[in-house]
C-alpha cells in the first residue's frame, strides 16, 4: 500500500510546480533548522545593544530584534523547539491513542464503554481551550506544553483506531486466529496493529501541521518555553511591540510556521487524493454561467416564436425525428475515445404513437433518450445528422433553448425511481415546481392540477407532504410519471421505466403508462431491453444493435416475421416466446 501511495504521490507532484516549490522550500527550512549550529554562528539568546533593530542585510539576513539578537539564529534555533515539541507530541498521541483505541475496540464491553465515555467528555471541550487550561495550570514550559497538546489530541486518534479495530476484529483471519487459540496480545499486535500501521502513520503526518499550529499558538500566549530561549510563536508575540519599525520580527517566525504547515497540509492533501483516487464527475459546464448573464432579448424572442410554430405543428409534424444521426465518444483521456455510440440512426415518432426501442445494454438506447432531451454531454459528441423536434432543427440550440422544452414539451421517466427524486424535497413540491417553472398559472389552478395528476397515477393526496424515502419503488415511479405529465407534454421518453420494479408493479406501471398515453395523446418513446414489454406497448419498433438500426417496422409485423438475424436471436432468447407471438393480438 505504501509503495502504491508513494507512486501516486510522485505522479501527482510531477508537473505540479507549486507543490515542488513548496516542498523544497519547507525541506530547506527544516534542513536549516536541524543544522542550526552549523548554519549560523550567532548566539540566539545573547543580547547586544549596539545593534538593536537592524533591518535585514548581508550581515544579518533577517535583521536583529530589540535586544540586538540575530533573527535568523533565533528562527533556526527556535524551530528546533517548535518542531521537536510537535513531533514528540504526535508520537505520544499516536502511541497513547493507538494503544487505548486497540484495547477498547478489541476487548469491547465495559472497557470500551468507559473509554468511549472518556473520549466523549474530552472531545466536549474546544481543543485549544482545554490545551490552554492544562498548560496554564501546569505553569507553562516544554513538558506542560507537550502534555497539554497530547491530552487534547489523543481522543480523536483513539476513536478512529477503535473504529478500525472493531471492523478488523470480525474479519475472517482474526476470527480464525482466535479460534486457533492465539493469545489476545498476539492477535492485537500481529493481526491488527500491523494492518493499521499505514493508516496511523498517514493520520499522524496529516495531524502534524495542526499540532505545530497548536504549539505555536500556546507559545504565542506565553505558555511555551520561558524567554529568552527562542520559539516561533513566542518570537512572533515579542515582535508585535516593535512591529511598526521592524516588521521582519513578525514576518520571519510567521512565514516559517506558515511554510512548514502549508507544506505538510499540501503533502497531506496529495496523499489523501492518492489514497482515495480522483473522483470523476460529468462536466457541469451548463451550470457555470448563470442564466441572467446570458439573457439575450433576441434569443428570447426567437424562443417564443419557435414555441408558437411548434404549437401549431404539434398535431401534424413528427415530434422527434432523427435523420442519419451519429454520436461518438470524443475524449482523448477516455479509453473509449473514438467509439461510435450511434451510427447513422434515422427514426421518427409521430404524435400519439408509441415507438418501442429495443436493444441490449450498450446498444446506444439511453444515448437516444438523452438526445431527445438535449442532455447529451461530453465526452459524447455529434458525428453528423440532424435532430428535429417538432420540425425545428436543434443543431444551434443551447442549454437554455432545450430547458424551455424539457418538462413542458418532452419529459422523461427513467430507470431507477429510487434515486430519481430529490431526497430533501416533499413530493408535492417536486411536482409543483415543474408547473411553476414552465407556466404562470394561479396557485389554485396549480393545486387542482397537482391533485389531478396524482389521481391520474393512482396516488393518494397524502403523498403531497411526504418525502421520497417514505414511498415504495412503485409509488416513486408513479410520482416520476406524474411529474412528467403534469404539463401535458407532447412526447414522453420512457427509458427502461419498469426494469427496477418487481414483476407485479411492472405490470401496473406499464398499464398506467398506456392509459396516460391514451388520455393525453402522448407520443411515447419506449426504451427497453425486454421484448415482451415492448411488444405489449409499442405501435412500431426499432431494433438497435451497437448503434445501428438493424430492423424497424410495425410491432406485429416485426415480431411476426423478423427480417434481421439479430432480431430472431433476440426473440429466441425470450422464454415462452410462443405465447407472446400469439397472445396480445398478434
Amino acid at each position, binding site marked *: 500500500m505504501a509503495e502504491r501511495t508513494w507512486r501516486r504521490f510522485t505522479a501527482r507532484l510531477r508537473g505540479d510546480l507549486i507543490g515542488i516549490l513548496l516542498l523544497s522550500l519547507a525541506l530547506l527550512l527544516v534542513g536549516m533548522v536541524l543544522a542550526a549550529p552549523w548554519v549560523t554562528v550567532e548566539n540566539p539568546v545573547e543580547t547586544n545593544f549596539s545593534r538593536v533593530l537592524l533591518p535585514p542585510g548581508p550581515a544579518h539576513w533577517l535583521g536583529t530584534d530589540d535586544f540586538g539578537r540575530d533573527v535568523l539564529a533565533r528562527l533556526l534555533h527556535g524551530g528546533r523547539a517548535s518542531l521537536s515539541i510537535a513531533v514528540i507530541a504526535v508520537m505520544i498521541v499516536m502511541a497513547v491513542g493507538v494503544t487505548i483505541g486497540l484495547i477498547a475496540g478489541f476487548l469491547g464491553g465495559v472497557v470500551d464503554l468507559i473509554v468511549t465515555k472518556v473520549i*466523549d*467528555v474530552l472531545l*466536549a*471541550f*474546544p*481543543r*485549544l*481551550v*482545554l490545551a*490552554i*487550561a492544562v498548560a496554564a*495550570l*501546569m505553569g507553562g514550559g516544554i513538558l506542560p506544553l507537550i502534555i497539554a497538546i497530547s491530552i487534547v489530541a489523543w481522543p480523536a486518534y483513539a476513536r478512529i483506531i477503535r473504529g478500525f479495530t472493531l471492523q478488523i476484529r470480525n474479519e475472517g483471519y482474526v476470527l480464525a486466529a482466535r479460534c486457533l487459540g492465539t493469545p489476545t496480545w498476539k492477535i492485537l499486535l500481529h493481526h491488527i496493529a500491523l494492518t493499521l500501521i499505514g493508516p496511523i502513520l498517514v493520520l499522524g503526518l496529516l495531524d502534524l*501541521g495542526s499540532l505545530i*499550529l497548536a504549539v*505555536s*499558538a500556546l507559545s*504565542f*500566549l*506565553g505558555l511555551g518555553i520561558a524567554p529568552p530561549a527562542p520559539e516561533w*510563536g513566542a518570537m*512572533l508575540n515579542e515582535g*508585535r511591540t516593535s*512591529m*511598526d519599525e521592524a*516588521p521582519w520580527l*513578525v514576518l520571519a517566525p*510567521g512565514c516559517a510556521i*506558515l511554510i512548514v*504547515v*502549508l507544506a505538510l*497540509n*499540501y503533502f497531506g*492533501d496529495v496523499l489523501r487524493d492518492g489514497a482515495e483516487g480522483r473522483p470523476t*464527475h460529468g462536466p*457541469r459546464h*451548463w451550470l*457555470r454561467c*448563470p442564466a441572467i448573464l446570458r439573457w439575450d432579448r433576441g434569443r428570447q424572442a426567437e424562443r417564443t416564436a419557435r414555441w408558437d410554430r411548434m404549437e401549431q405543428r404539434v398535431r401534424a409534424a413528427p415530434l422527434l425525428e432523427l435523420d442519419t444521426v451519429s454520436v461518438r465518444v470524443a475524449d482523448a483521456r477516455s479509453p473509449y475515445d473514438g467509439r461510435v455510440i450511434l451510427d447513422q440512426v434515422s427514426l421518427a415518432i409521430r404524435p400519439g404513437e408509441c415507438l418501442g426501442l429495443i436493444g441490449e445494454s450498450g446498444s446506444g438506447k439511453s444515448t437516444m433518450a438523452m438526445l431527445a432531451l438535449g*442532455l447529451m454531454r461530453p465526452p459524447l459528441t455529434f458525428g453528423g445528422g440532424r435532430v428535429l423536434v417538432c420540425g425545428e432543427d436543434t443543431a444551434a440550440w443551447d442549454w437554455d433553448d432545450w*430547458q424551455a*422544452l*424539457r*418538462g*413542458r414539451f418532452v*419529459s*422523461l421517466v*427513467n430507470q431507477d425511481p429510487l*434515486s430519481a*427524486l*430529490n*431526497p*430533501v*424535497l416533499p413530493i408535492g413540491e417536486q411536482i409543483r*415546481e*415543474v408547473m411553476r*417553472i414552465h407556466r404562470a398559472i394561479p396557485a389554485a389552478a396549480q393545486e387542482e392540477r397537482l391533485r389531478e395528476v396524482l389521481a391520474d397515477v393512482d396516488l393518494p393526496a397524502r403523498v403531497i407532504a411526504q*418525502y421520497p*424515502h*417514505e414511498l415504495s419503488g412503485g409509488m416513486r415511479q408513479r410520482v416520476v410519471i406524474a411529474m412528467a405529465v403534469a404539463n401535458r407534454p407532447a412526447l414522453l421518453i420512457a427509458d427502461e421505466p419498469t426494469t427496477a420494479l418487481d414483476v407485479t408493479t411492472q405490470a401496473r406501471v406499464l398499464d398506467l403508462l398506456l392509459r396516460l398515453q391514451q388520455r393525453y395523446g402522448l407520443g411515447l418513446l419506449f426504451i427497453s431491453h425486454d421484448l415482451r414489454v415492448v411488444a405489449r406497448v409499442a405501435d412500431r419498433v426499432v431494433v438497435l444493435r451497437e448503434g445501428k438500426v438493424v430492423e424497424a417496422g410495425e410491432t406485429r409485423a416485426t415480431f411476426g416475421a423478423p427480417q434481421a438475424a439479430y432480431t430472431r436471436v433476440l426473440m429466441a432468447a425470450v422464454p415462452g416466446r410462443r405465447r407472446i407471438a400469439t397472445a396480445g393480438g398478434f
Partner: protein
Amino acid sequence: MAYYALRRALAAIAVLFGTTVVVFLLLRLIPGDPATAVLLTMVTPGADTAQITRGDIEALRAQLGLADPFPVQYLRWLGEILSGNLGTSLRSRQPIAEELADRLPATLELAGAALVVMLLIAIPSGILGALYSGRPADHVTRMLSLVGDSMPGFFLGVLLIYLFAIQLGWLPAIGRSDPAGIVMPALTLGLGVAATTSRLLRASLLDTLAQPYILMAEAKGMPRGVLLFRHALRPALIPVLTSSSLVAGGLLGGAAVIETVFAWPGIGRYMIEAIAGRDYPVIQGFTLAMASLFVAINFGVDLLYRLLDPRIRVEEAPRG
C-alpha cells in the same frame, strides 16, 4: 423527533457531568500544593514569602475545603456550580460567573461576526470549487483554503494590524470602542475556520451534482438557479453541517488567541489575563463555561441536522 431530542439532551447532560469531573481534576495539575500556590499569588510582589506560615496554609486549606477527601470536595464543588456559583476571582474578588457574563457578549459578538465571514467565504468558494472542479478556479480556491488552514490565526491578525492599522490607518488596531474594531478580529477568526467548511462543501456538492435526481431535475426543465440552489445545494449542505462542531471549536478556541491579538474585551482575553495572574479559579470557570457552550452548540446542531434531513427524521423514530 421529541424522543430523539430527549435522548440527545440526556446524553449531552451526561457529557456535561463528565466535563465537570475533568475541570475539577484540572486544578490538581497545579504543581505542588494548591493552597500554597494560591497563597503565593495573594502576597504582593516583592513581599517576603517567608512570612507565609504553616498556619496560614492550613487555614486556607480548610477554607478551600482541600482537607476533605476528593469525592467530598468534588460533590461540594459540583453543588456550588449547579447553583450557579463558579467561585470568586483571586484578583478582583468578584464572582467569576458575573465577570464571565459581563464579557460573554463581546465574545459572542465576535464569534457571530466570524461565522458570517466564514459563511460569506466558504459557501461561494465551495460552490465555485465544485462547479469548476479540475479547472483553474478550483485550483485557486483549493490553494487558498490550504493557506487558510495553514495560517496561524495570530500571524494573520498581526499582519492585518500591520497593513490596515499601522500602514494604511483604515481600521483601529485594537479594542471594541469603535464599531469598525470588529472587522479585523472577525476576519481573522472567520478565515481560520472557512477553509474546512469550503472544502467539505466542495466535496459534498460534487457528490450531489453527480446524483441521478439532479439529472432528473434537469430533465424536468429546471433552470440553473433552481438546479444549483434548490436541488443540489440543499442536500449538499446537510453533510457540511456535521463539520459545525469543528467550526464551533475553532471559533471558541481561536477566540482566546484572537482576542489577545486585538485586545478584544471578551472571555478569551479574560482567561489569558487570568493565566498571567495565576488566577486558578477563573481558568477553571472559563474552561467549564466554554465546554458547556460547546456542548450546547453541538446539541443544537445535532437537532438541526435531524430537522433538515427528512430521511433521518423517520429512521430515528422509536421502535416497538
